[in-house]
C-alpha cells in the first residue's frame, strides 16, 4: 500500500545496516515496554474504509439536507468549483512550509497574494500568512498588544458583543501573562450596548480595545470615535471583522484601526464542522515586526528576477526560542490558498455582489420575521447578514420544531448570554433563496400558533 518494500529489499537493507531483523533496530527501547500490542480495529482496505465512511457521513444531516439559517462564526456560502479543483493539486497540498524558496515559489507567491488581498480588504498596510482561525488570530492581537507596550500596559478592553468563543480563547492565551487583565464592557446586563460605550473605560493603562465588526449580533457601527479615543490614550484599537461584510461596508482601516483580525472561513472554505478554518491578521506597517506568525516578502535572486521568501524569520521561535513573541510554527497554508483563490475569482464585482446578496436577503428575512406576531427584531441599528430575533418561546424548543421541518434554526443566544432569553441569532447568506425565507417565516408563525 504505502510501504513499498519487497521482502528481498527489506533483507538487503537490513544486511546493509548490519542487523538480522527489523526488531534489532529497536534495542534502545526499554525491553519491558517494547512492541506493545495495540488494541485497535483490524485494517480495512481502501474500498472498505470508503464504504464505511460514506455510510457514516450519510447518517449526518448536513446543510445540503437542511435549510441553514445558522451562523454565529461559521457561514454557509457558495464555494465555486475552481477552488477545490486547484486546492487538490498536490503541488500545493503535499508541500511543506516553504523553507526552500527556490522550489516553493508557488506557495510563497500565493501567500504573498493572500497578504495583499487581506491588507486591501481590511484597509490595512500589511497582513501575515494566516493563523489557525478567527479566535486564535484575536488572541494573537492581544499578545501583540502586550508586547507592543513591553508588558507595561495591563488592560485589554473587550466589547461584550464579540463572539464568546473568541473571548474564551483570548482569555486562555493571555492567562500566561501575569500582569495583563481582560476587562469587558461594564454593561454586563446588556450585551447590546454600542462600541462607543467602551470609551469611558479606555485609560492610560489600556493596551488594546477590541470590538467586532459587524459585531456578534450582526450590527455595523462607525468606529471612528472609538479609534480616536483609544489613540488619545495611546492604546491600540483591534477590530475582529467578518470578511464578507467588507465587500460592502467600510474597511476597518478607514476608521484608523491598528489591528484587524478575523475568521476567513467565509472566503471559500467549507463549514467542515468547525475546521480547518483560517485566521487573518492585518495591521499597520509600523507594527510589521511585531506580527506573530509567518510573513512572506518580495525580493530578487542574483539575476534580478523577482521572487518571494519567508522574511523577518529571526523573530520566530526556531531562532528566538523562549524570546519569541509567539510559538507559531505553521500557519493555515492551504486554507489561505482557498481564500486567495476565492477573492481572486470573485474579485471586485463578485465579492461585492455576494455581500449585497447577503445584506438584501437578511433584510428581507428580518423585515418579515419582525412583523410576525409574537416575534420582534431586537435591534434597529444597521446590520449585515445576521440579526437577533426575540422569540415567543425558548430558542431550543423553536429550533427543535424547525429541525422537524427541515430547517437549521438560528443560534440560541441564551447559551452565552443568560439575559438574552428566547433570543435567536439568525444568519442569511446568498445560499438562501426567497422561497426558503418565506417558508421559515411561515414555519415560525406556526410555531407561535401551536
Amino acid at each position, binding site marked *: *500500500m*504505502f510501504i513499498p518494500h519487497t521482502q528481498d529489499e527489506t533483507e538487503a537493507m537490513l544486511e546493509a*545496516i*548490519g542487523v538480522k531483523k527489523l526488531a534489532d533496530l*529497536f534495542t*534502545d527501547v*526499554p525491553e519491558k515496554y517494547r*512492541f506493545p500490542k495495540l488494541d*485497535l*480495529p*483490524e*485494517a*480495512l482496505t481502501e474500498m472498505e*474504509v470508503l464504504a464505511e465512511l460514506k455510510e*457514516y457521513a450519510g447518517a449526518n444531516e*448536513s446543510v445540503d439536507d437542511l435549510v441553514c439559517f445558522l451562523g454565529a*462564526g461559521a457561514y454557509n456560502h457558495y464555494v465555486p468549483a*475552481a477552488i477545490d479543483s486547484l486546492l487538490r*493539486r*498536490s503541488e500545493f497540498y*503535499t*508541500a511543506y*512550509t516553504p523553507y*526552500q524558496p*527556490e522550489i516553493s*515559489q*508557488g*506557495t510563497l507567491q500565493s501567500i*504573498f497574494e493572500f*497578504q*495583499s*488581498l487581506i*491588507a*486591501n480588504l481590511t484597509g490595512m498596510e500589511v497582513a501575515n500568512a494566516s493563523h*489557525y*482561525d478567527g479566535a486564535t488570530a484575536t488572541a494573537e492581537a492581544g499578545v501583540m498588544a502586550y508586547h507592543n507596550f513591553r508588558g507595561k500596559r495591563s488592560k485589554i478592553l473587550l466589547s461584550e458583543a464579540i463572539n464568546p468563543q473568541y473571548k*474564551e480563547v483570548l482569555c*486562555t492565551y493571555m492567562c*500566561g501573562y501575569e500582569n495583563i487583565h481582560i476587562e469587558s464592557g461594564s454593561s454586563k446586563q446588556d450585551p447590546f450596548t454600542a462600541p462607543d460605550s467602551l470609551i469611558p473605560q479606555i485609560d492610560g493603562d489600556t493596551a488594546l480595545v477590541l470590538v467586532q465588526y459587524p459585531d456578534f449580533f450582526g450590527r455595523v457601527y462607525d468606529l471612528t470615535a472609538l479609534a480616536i479615543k483609544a489613540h488619545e490614550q495611546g492604546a491600540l484599537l483591534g477590530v475582529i471583522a467578518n470578511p464578507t461584510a467588507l465587500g*460592502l*461596508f467600510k474597511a476597518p482601516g478607514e476608521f484608523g484601526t491598528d489591528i484587524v483580525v478575523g475568521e476567513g472561513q467565509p472566503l471559500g472554505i*467549507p463549514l467542515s*464542522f468547525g475546521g480547518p478554518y483560517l485566521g487573518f491578521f492585518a495591521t499597520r506597517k509600523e507594527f*510589521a515586526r511585531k506580527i506573530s506568525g509567518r510573513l512572506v*516578502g*518580495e525580493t530578487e535572486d*542574483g539575476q534580478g528576477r523577482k521572487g518571494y*521568501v519567508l522574511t523577518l524569520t529571526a523573530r520566530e521561535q526556531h531562532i528566538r526560542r523562549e524570546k*519569541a513573541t*509567539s*510559538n507559531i*510554527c*505553521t500557519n493555515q497554508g*492551504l486554507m489561505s*490558498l482557498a481564500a486567495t483563490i476565492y477573492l*481572486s475569482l470573485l474579485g471586485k464585482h*463578485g465579492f461585492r455582489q*455576494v455581500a449585497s*446578496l447577503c445584506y438584501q436577503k437578511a433584510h*428581507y428575512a428580518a423585515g418579515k420575521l419582525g412583523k410576525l406576531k409574537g416575534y420582534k427584531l431586537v435591534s434597529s441599528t444597521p446590520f449585515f447578514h445576521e440579526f437577533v430575533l426575540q422569540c415567543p418561546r425558548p430558542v431550543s424548543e423553536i429550533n427543535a420544531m424547525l429541525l422537524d421541518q427541515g430547517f437549521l434554526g438560528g443560534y440560541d443566544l441564551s447559551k452565552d448570554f443568560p439575559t438574552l432569553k428566547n433570543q435567536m441569532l439568525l444568519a442569511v447568506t446568498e445560499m438562501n433563496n426567497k422561497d426558503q425565507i418565506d417558508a421559515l417565516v411561515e414555519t415560525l408563525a406556526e410555531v407561535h400558533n401551536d
Partner: protein
Amino acid sequence: MTEPTIYELSSTGRVGVEYPLPDVPLTDFPVELLREDLPLPELSEVDVVRHFTHLSSLNYCIDTGLYPLGSCTMKYNPKINEETARLPGFAHTHPLQPAETVQVNLALMFELQEFLKEISGFAGVCLEPAAGAQGEMVGVMIIRAYHRSRGDSKRVKMLIPDSAHGTNPASSAMSGFEVVPVPSDASGNVDLAALKAICDDTVAGLMLTNPNTLGLFDENVLEVIKTVHAAGGLVYGDGANLNALLGIARPGDLGFDLMHFNLHKTFSTPHGGGGPGSGPVGVTKKLIDFLPTPVVAVIEEGSEELPPLYGFTTPKQTIGRVKSFYGQFGMIVRAFTYIRMQGPDGLKKVSQYAVLNANYLLSRLQGAYVLPYKRRCMHEFVLEGCWADAPEVHAMDVAKRLMDYKFHPPTNYFPLIVHEALMIEPTETESMQTLDLFADAMLKIAEEAHTHPELLKSAPHDTPISRLDEVKAAKDLVLCCWIPEDN
C-alpha cells in the same frame, strides 16, 4: 520563470464567478457606512485557474519526490483521505448544529480519541489544538494548571533539552515559565547528571522529544522521567517524532504524563504548504480534568438496538478553550481514515520501516558525511554538512545543490547543537530505489564539495529561481503586491 501577481493579471471589467440576481425586494443600504473602493483584482475563471496552476508548477511536493525534511515526517498522503474528508456529510456540517444531527461526527471524533489513547498509552485525549505548536502550548498550560490546583505555585521552571524544537521554549515562555536548558551528553541523550543537578521543587516539568531531534531514542529515558517525577515535575512528550514509536513503545507506558500528536506528521494528513496541521493532546488520568474544552464523550450508553449518544463535555478544571469549535475536523477525518486502513499491525509496520529507511540511508552516507553521534538512529538522523578540507562549503550549499539532483533538501541548521546540521527523515513510504538515488546524489555532492565547491556555492542552477536575497527582503519589507494605478 516568474509569474505575474494576481493584481498584475487583473483587467478592469472581468468577473470570475457570477451570482444570481436578488430574488427579494431590495432594502436601502446605510450609505454612510459603505466603502467606496474595493481594491480586489478582476479576472475570469480561466485567468485564475491558469495563474494558480502556473504557481503550483513552481513547487516541489511529496508527489514529486522524496521530501526528507527531518522532524517534519513528510510521508506520502494517501489520496483516499482527500475523498473521505470531502464527503458532504462531513464537509457540509455546521459546527453549531444540534448534536443529534451530527452524531456521526461526534462518534468519529470519539473513536479517534480512543485510537490515540491506545496508540500512546494515555487515559484522555482532546482533539482541539490546531497544530503541534498549539498542542504544546496546551500541554504547558496543563502542567501549570496541575501544579496550581495543588497550591504549588513555586514551580516556575520548565526544563528543555538543548536539542528541542524552538516551539518548546516559545510555548513555555508564552505560558509564563522560565526556560532552563538541559544539555545533551556525548551520546546525544539528556545529560542525566546535569538534569539531576537542576531538578528541585521549582521545576514544573521537562519537555522531552523522544526520539529526540538527533533521531536518537534516549537510552536513559526511564531514569530521566523518574528524576523529574522525583522532583515533583511532570514530563511532557513532544509528539513530533511519534512516527518512530507506533507499536514500538507507548509514551504513556514509559512514564510520560502528557504529549501532543501531530496528525499531519504521523497520521498522514497533508501539510498543505504549511498548514492546516492538527495537534491533539493526550494525558494521564490525573491530568484529564485539565484538558481544553470541549472533549467528546458518550453521554448515554448505547444498547443492542441503539448506538450510544455522543456529546461535548467540559473537563472539570479545564485550561479553557484554545480555538473556535472543536479542532481541525477535516484533518481528524483524514487521520481516522488512515488509522482504519493501517490497523494495529500496519501502524507498527509504519514505524519499523521508517526506522529501517533511516538506518539504511545512514549506512550509505556515513563516512562521506560526519555523523556527530555514532549510534543507530530511529526514524531520522543528523549529519554535518561541512568538511574540514572543504572550508568554504556549508550545509546550506549541500541543501541547495540537492535541488539540482531533483530532491528536496533535508532540514538545515537544526538541531542547533550540531554544527552545520543536515537532518534527514526519509519516512516509511520511500522505496529502496528512491533512497539509493538520494544517497547517490548526496555522495556525489560530498565529492563535488571537494572537487568543484563552486558548483555547490552557486546552486541551485536548475530551479525556477536561484538563491534569493533575504537581506533585501528583510530590509525593504515588501509584504504586499504593487497594485497597478488604473485598478
